[in-house]
């Protein structure tokens, strides 16, 4: 079965570093090298290196590229200055989430402006088709190229990430603020660096040529050996993003869910004149009868997983369901995200969760579960 999966250019590197490889969105990806908790802790305290080449990368060029991308996403992106990155949703006409994405505004070596869309691996084919359909209908000049296979992507995450990368990149990291990006040279190779990530920690994501990524990986590990860098897999990527309260497509996000009930109002510009799904989302913003995303914590040790039903303590019928759950290595207790009735979503509400046939006490808590210590690079 493994033979039919797509391998990233770092496949052999992962195997050589002891990774356990698993199927993820059609790719063979490392889930863990040593232990999920060790890799999680290294991300919170030092630095880790992730292969995220499986994520999709679509580039938009042409005089109307900015306007076209703006038509596809929930947030204002046409007015972003070069070097900005924004988190946004791609929604369908009904306002359901097709994907959550990062939109980059970059300038290449010839100073030509372009947009880059980084999409989830599991949604790559769907979004590529969606983009193609809407480009044909679009009145304007835009050229779309799929860079997913020709370019690779890495994440370097953790409090030591900036120090580690400083000697390897040709740009000033002190002025590269959270959610900004630049074309630069990375370990001598041309690429894109952004101060972004999916861990709740300071960190960077790097896009480099597929034929250069193994060399870049070696350089990163060498530069980071005194800064505690270790390779990290999808296992801790999930525990890290959960602690950071970040949704994962296929769990907290789906075509049946709109971004407002997911708590992503900040990424939906309802006052934007036009984007696909806008009218449906304006209507949805008035509704109070749809479940909303909450964080829950449990005092016991048993962990609620996706699909576990949520109840009020004395309630006979469920008020919602768990979409992701794990044991938080930082908080040392089970945490989960769930969709529950809005009337019970207030922080502090006592709940029970049916964990494999037994009800475990739980309570609604504010997201995120974990916020990195202040003083480190913070949200802009």
């Amino acid at each position, binding site marked *: 079965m493994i033979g039919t999966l797509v391998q990233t250019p770092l496949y052999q590197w992962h195997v050589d570093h002891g990774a356990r490889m698993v199927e993820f969105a059609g790719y063979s990806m490392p*889930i863990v090298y040593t232990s*999920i*908790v060790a890799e999680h802790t290294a991300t919170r305290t030092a630095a880790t290196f992730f292969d995220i080449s499986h994520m999709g990368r679509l580039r938009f060029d042409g005089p109307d590229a900015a306007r076209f991308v703006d038509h596809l996403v929930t947030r204002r992106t046409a007015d972003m200055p070069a070097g900005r990155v924004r988190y946004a949703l791609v929604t369908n006409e009904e306002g359901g989430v097709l994907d959550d994405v990062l939109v980059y505004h970059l300038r290449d070596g010839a100073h030509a402006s372009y947009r880059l869309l980084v999409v989830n691996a599991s949604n790559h084919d769907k979004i590529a088709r969606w983009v193609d359909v809407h480009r044909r209908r679009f009145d304007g000049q835009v050229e779309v190229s799929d860079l997913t296979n020709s370019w690779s992507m890495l994440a370097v995450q953790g409090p030591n990430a900036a120090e580690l990368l400083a000697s390897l990149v040709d740009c000033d990291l002190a002025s590269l603020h959270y959610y900004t990006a630049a074309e630069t040279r990375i370990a001598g190779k041309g690429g894109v660096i952004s101060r972004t990530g999916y861990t709740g920690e300071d960190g960077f994501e790097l896009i480099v040529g597929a034929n250069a990524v193994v060399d870049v990986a070696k350089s990163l590990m060498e530069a980071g050996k005194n800064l505690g860098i270790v390779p990290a897999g999808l*296992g801790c990527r999930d*525990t890290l993003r959960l602690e950071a309260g970040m949704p994962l497509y296929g769990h907290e996000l789906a075509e049946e869910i709109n971004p407002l009930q997911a708590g992503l109002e900040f990424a939906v510009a309802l006052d934007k004149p036009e984007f696909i799904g806008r009218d449906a989302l304006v209507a949805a913003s008035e509704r109070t009868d749809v479940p909303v995303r909450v964080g829950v914590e449990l005092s016991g040790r048993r962990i609620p*997983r996706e699909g576990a039903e949520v109840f009020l303590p004395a309630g006979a019928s469920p008020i919602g369901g768990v979409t992701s759950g794990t044991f938080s290595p930082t908080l040392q207790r089970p945490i989960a995200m769930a969709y529950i009735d809005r009337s019970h979503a207030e922080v502090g509400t006592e709940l029970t969760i049916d964990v*494999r046939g037994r009800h475990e006490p739980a309570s609604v808590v504010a997201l995120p579960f974990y916020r990195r210590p202040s003083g480190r690079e913070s949200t802009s």
Partner: protein
Amino acid sequence: MKPEDLLYATTHEWVHVAADESGGKVATVGISAFAVESLTDLVFIELPEVGRQVKAGESFGEIESVKAVSDVYSPVDGEVIEVNEVLRDDLERLSQDPYEAGWVAKIRMSDEAALAELMDHTAYQKQCADEAH
């Protein structure tokens, strides 16, 4: 206990059978190194209650890891007479010493028929090799 001398269930429990003073047969049950290693990052074990009657193939405990939860199945019929209480606070023993300090439960067997369903070490190793791919 040497892994080579044990019997194994397809669900990765190991069994060691010995006679007690009264001539009855007591099965010591644990979880194989292969299973413990593939679980990684163990969080919690729920042990069966002493005195519980169990049937072979019945779930009588669970192990939570960061990534997933797994049932622990009794490989034999009988009564749980002792559980490894130390594991509640020191789950590391399970990963560090799965065949000695990491044992899970002792079951006084009411019937030995279920033993015939278990594998020897060679057959179990083959199963693990198949599962690894």
